[in-house]
């Protein structure tokens, strides 16, 4: 089922940045924590390191903002990521479109298999 795997990897690729925005919707997180939580979701990310360029791109787009902050335990400073107003709008828009898309596909697939 190479074709299905390919389609899923495309979908995953497209949805990934919205998953990043979604994880930051309620609270800011620092890079390591954010990347580890995405990496822990089964099949979402192939290499955690590849998320850093994505974070940097989202920041260039103005959908994320970041600040370096000292860590409490006296460790190295951490880069915290937060969602911006533009990021929130993009996420809300995607959420609506995504539900619509998912429902349409589900409906068609259900007709095909019953």
């Amino acid at each position, binding site marked *: 089922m190479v074709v299905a795997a390919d389609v899923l*990897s495309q979908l*995953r*690729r497209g949805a*990934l*940045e919205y998953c990043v925005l979604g994880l930051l919707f309620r609270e800011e997180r*620092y*890079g*390591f*924590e954010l*990347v*580890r939580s995405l*990496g822990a979701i089964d099949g979402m*990310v*192939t*290499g*955690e*390191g*590849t*998320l*850093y*360029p*994505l*974070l*940097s*791109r989202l920041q260039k*787009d103005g959908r994320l903002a970041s600040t370096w902050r000292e860590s409490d335990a006296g*460790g*190295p*400073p*951490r*880069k915290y990521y937060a969602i911006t107003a533009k990021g929130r709008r993009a996420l809300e828009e995607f959420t609506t479109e995504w539900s619509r898309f998912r429902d349409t596909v589900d409906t068609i697939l259900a007709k095909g298999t019953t």
Partner: protein
Amino acid sequence: MNTTLHLLAEDYLRRLEQASWSLPSHDRAELLAEIRGHLQAGLTPESTDADVRNLLDELGTPEDIVAAAQASPDGAPVSGMPTAAPQVPASPWGAVEIVAVLALTLGTFVVPIIGPIVGIVLVWASTRWTHREKTVATILTVLPVIVLAVGAIGLVSVRSSGSDQPLPVEEHAPVVVTETGAP
């Protein structure tokens, strides 16, 4: 910020540094700082070799990370799929580039002034050439004009200063405008 990490982690960062030479320097520095921060956050002095290998495996290869950083914003791989082919640099010669060079060379003789101007505009419109190459092309085109102008001004001021030494002006071989603007 630059505390030394486990040897395997430092080795990984070195590989990433080598693999990322083609990235813009700001992006590269940021990426290296982020990955170093990741390793610092994920490892303790007590971490074993196995712990380090585990964390590095989950990061993916330096090449995958660089491929993700090079990917264009629209659609190209951002999650570093293992199948991501290394980016082959496109040929530096497209229609715009060829016409630009023709305008800068032949254009100078066929339509003086306008030819090179069109050429420079086309050079800057090119998506294949780097900023540096464009700057060099522009300087090579404009420099002879400036040299000529400065020379002419110099000549006029020498003449009008009323020097009674006859200057063999004509022997200052007429400067030929050769505008080879090709980078």
